């Protein structure tokens, strides 16, 4: 067991545990913070895979943006003080069955697939390469994604306006 393997398993365990917390917790804020843990773990794993830029983006956008936004939403939609069980779960057994089935299926695929592993390259900073890609070959998707964000922005504003009641 090499140190990288250990690091991997540690990071993986942390991420899975956090994800478990998201799935099981009955308090919404606890779930939110567990999600934060999961996202941090995934960011670390990205870096582990040599995607440094991606990890940074994960932290910035997911944790700093989306998660904070979710927390805002939680605050705005709950009377936190009186709610004990704010994130109940129903129908766990059928969901568990389905989930298990899906898991089994995925694992089988993973184990049976004839993975072709190529020579690993050295880990290099990826920011420049991604930057070039975004403004080169993947310019159009990049711009379209920007447009989507713009539309989402406007849409979110429109949707969350308070209705004017006559």
């Amino acid at each position, binding site marked *: 067991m090499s140190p990288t393997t250990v690091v991997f398993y540690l990071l993986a365990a942390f*991420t899975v545990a956090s994800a478990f917390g998201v799935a099981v917790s009955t308090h919404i804020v606890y779930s939110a913070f567990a999600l934060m843990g999961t996202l941090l773990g995934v960011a670390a794993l990205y870096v582990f*895979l040599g995607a440094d830029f*991606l990890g940074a983006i994960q932290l910035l956008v997911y944790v700093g943006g989306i998660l904070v936004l*979710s927390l805002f939403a939680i605050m705005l939609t709950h009377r936190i003080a009186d709610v004990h069980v704010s994130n109940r779960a129903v129908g766990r057994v059928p*969901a568990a069955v389905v989930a298990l089935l*899906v898991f089994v299926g995925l694992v089988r695929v993973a184990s049976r697939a004839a993975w072709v592993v190529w020579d690993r390259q050295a880990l290099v900073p990826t920011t420049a390469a991604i930057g070039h890609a975004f403004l080169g070959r993947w310019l159009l998707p990049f711009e379209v994604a920007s447009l989507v964000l713009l539309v989402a922005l406007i849409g979110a504003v429109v*949707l*969350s306006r308070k209705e004017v009641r006559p």
Partner: protein
Amino acid sequence: MDGVGVQSWVILSAILFVLGLFCVLTRRNALGILMGIELVLNAASLNVVALAHYASLGRDGQLFAIFVIMLAAAEAAIGLAIVLGIYQSFETIDVDATDRLRG
């Protein structure tokens, strides 16, 4: 990585995916469901980045993940705006309560 095979990454992604799926299917809190969706997305992105890494296509997998993050952001914004709207109409975000479209 010595010792960490592709399958490990795939299994890891599968675990995260399934947990996210469980979350989506069982949660009654709308925000809980959204969190489950985030888990799913993350699992999928992790899977792609890992496979790209092992296929020496690292940059392409990361690009995919970046796009996913962008779209997840947009989706989260809209979704949370909808949740706010539901809260305004129903005074609750329990999805069992929002069955007005029941046929």
